[in-house]
């Protein structure tokens, strides 16, 4: 069952025959410049969108003649609301898994930016509500409580308060301290409420907001932004995954325990090579059985998919993952993806340094399989806690042998004496990242493993002087 399901490389993603170094270097340089320019452009667009939100107010009648303390508070509140809503739409786009964003700076970076915007947006929204209540109150000579009651009787305002409440719930549930205590599903359901929050907040902007009054170009622009952001979500988070799932009809053909708590799931489907999955990418998988359908798993391909076969390897990370070991062959699988920039496409340097720990081996193994390598170009360092935590090491060693790559193994618990990614013994012997990878400074460093561990590897690389664009880190979380 197992060996027949083993995926093989296929012509679609197989790299071209080895190209001369200089040609490869030029190609990588061009591709890096292009990605970097696109990244900057997207960043600038986000800035502009926030500026336009303020400009909507600047261009509205009366913004040039704000009167009194009440007027200033009111207008500050309006601007806070406009910026907050714009940033919420930017957050939606970042979470929409738009291919351009994933290809340019990676979905994990997009989500990191998305997260960093959460709290500022919440503060802006709270300021929006507070400033407008105080501003209206100051103009009317009433207190904030009377004014709040008056606002509740204004059309669409109860919905707006509901939206604000939902946003608070979404952001609070995403705070690190809170999220750690919540089951993933609970967090996810709360997070889905943000779609509702965005929608119920819209009516009051259009009916009570003087900036977006009927018949203005501001109103048309605002609605267009809403359509754009929600449209990208609808297309890339719902429609495209649905089409991919229906088209490829993926099913489980076998579940192979490869170590305690670790299983390789062998999958069959139609035209899997046309998924366009590159070695190192991941998908968000959902297994449609009675006990697993409600949990989506972001899991890397542990081999480049073949025409009708694919393989993923999962470690028992959470409550949902442990059930995966009991999935029966025949189970229907839906897929969102493939996603990720942990591929040879992101390379910028002539040499390749791969570091993997534990289950972090999966994208590294697939990446090694999917990269066109000269002998001696790549060096692989595998890290395991003990003799059991050596998932897929044998086949990775085989791949290293066939590509002429050097392979090192480092086994043992992390040293406790100081913050390091190495075992005590190697630390004492004076092993460093540079001693394992003598050409580290001319290498692309790909690191995958537990977050805290891989951060330490990356830190050492930065201290050694590896430029930021040569560091590729796959973060295994969420």
């Amino acid at each position, binding site marked *: 069952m197992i060996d027949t399901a083993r995926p093989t490389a296929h012509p679609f993603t197989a790299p071209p025959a080895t190209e001369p170094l200089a040609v490869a270097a030029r190609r990588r340089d061009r591709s890096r410049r292009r990605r970097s320019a696109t990244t900057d452009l997207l960043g600038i667009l986000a800035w*502009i969108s926030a500026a336009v939100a303020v400009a909507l107010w600047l261009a509205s009648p009366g913004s*040039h003649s704000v009167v009194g303390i009440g007027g200033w508070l009111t207008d500050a509140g309006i601007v806070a609301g406009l910026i907050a809503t714009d940033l919420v739409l930017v957050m939606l786009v970042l979470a929409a898994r738009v291919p351009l964003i994933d290809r340019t700076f990676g979905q994990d970076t997009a989500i990191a930016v998305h997260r960093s915007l959460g709290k500022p947006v919440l503060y802006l929204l709270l300021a929006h509500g507070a400033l407008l209540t105080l501003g209206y109150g100051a103009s*009317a000579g009433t207190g904030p409580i009377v004014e709040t009651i008056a606002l509740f009787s204004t059309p669409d305002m109860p919905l707006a308060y509901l939206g604000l409440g939902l946003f608070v719930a979404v952001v609070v549930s995403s705070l690190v301290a809170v999220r750690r205590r919540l089951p993933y599903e609970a967090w996810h359901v709360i997070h889905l409420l943000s779609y509702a929050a965005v929608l119920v907040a819209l009516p009051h902007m259009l009916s009570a907001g003087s900036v977006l009054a009927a018949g203005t170009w501001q109103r048309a622009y605002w609605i267009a932004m809403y359509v754009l952001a929600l449209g990208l979500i609808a297309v890339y988070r719902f429609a495209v995954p649905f089409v991919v799932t229906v088209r490829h009809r993926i099913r489980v053909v076998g579940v192979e325990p490869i170590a305690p708590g670790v299983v390789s799931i062998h999958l069959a489907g139609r035209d899997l090579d046309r998924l366009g999955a590159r070695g190192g990418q991941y998908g968000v998988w959902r297994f449609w059985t009675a006990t697993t359908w409600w949990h989506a798993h972001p899991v890397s391909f542990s081999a480049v998919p073949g025409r009708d076969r694919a393989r993923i390897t999962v470690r028992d990370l959470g409550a949902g993952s442990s059930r995966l070991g009991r999935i029966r062959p025949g189970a229907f699988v839906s897929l969102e993806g493939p996603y990720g920039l942990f591929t040879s496409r992101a390379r910028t340097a002539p040499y390749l340094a791969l570091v993997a720990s534990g289950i972090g081996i999966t994208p590294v193994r697939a990446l090694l399989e999917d990269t066109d390598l000269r002998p001696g170009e790549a060096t692989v360092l595998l890290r395991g806690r003990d003799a059991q935590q050596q998932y897929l090491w044998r086949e990775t060693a085989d791949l290293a042998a066939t590509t002429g790559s050097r392979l090192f193994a480092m086994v043992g618990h992390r040293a406790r004496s100081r913050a390091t990614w190495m075992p005590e013994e190697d630390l004492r012997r004076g092993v460093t990242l540079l001693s394992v990878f003598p050409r580290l400074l001319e290498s692309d460093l790909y690191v995958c493993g537990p977050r805290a561990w891989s951060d330490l590897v990356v830190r050492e690389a930065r201290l050694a002087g590896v430029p930021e664009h040569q560091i590729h880190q796959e973060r295994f979380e969420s």
Partner: protein
Amino acid sequence: MRARAVAGGIVSSIAVLVIGWQLGGQPAVTAPSQSTTSGTASGSGSSGNGSSGSTASGTGGSSVSGTFTGDATETRYGPVQVRITVAGGKITDVTALQLTDHDGRSVQISQQAAPILRQEALAAQSASIQAVSGATFTSEGYTTSLQSAIDKAGL
């Protein structure tokens, strides 16, 4: 590279803000223009809200009667226009033809302010009335339009 994005973002944002500033900038209350079509002392206005009235030719001061429509006053939250009913040289009623209605909030404010302004106007028999707090723009527009109606009535 990040510096380039941030610098580009700041420069283009400033450009956008300047354009936004240029696009805006209508003053909050424009003076009622004399060329406003509605509200001539006699005859009908554009929307049937014209004034009609007669100045009695009798002796003993003014004994104006009829309705007089004030000029529409443009405010930040929409135009304001009132019509007064005069009987025997006295303002007997003030009707708001248009009130600030730019958005939901403005409608709410003007509905609160209009009865107060009307009471004040009837009591004062002039446009020298106090603004309703919280309805500054509505009040200003109201008094301006009221004054022009009073002028037309020749009170």
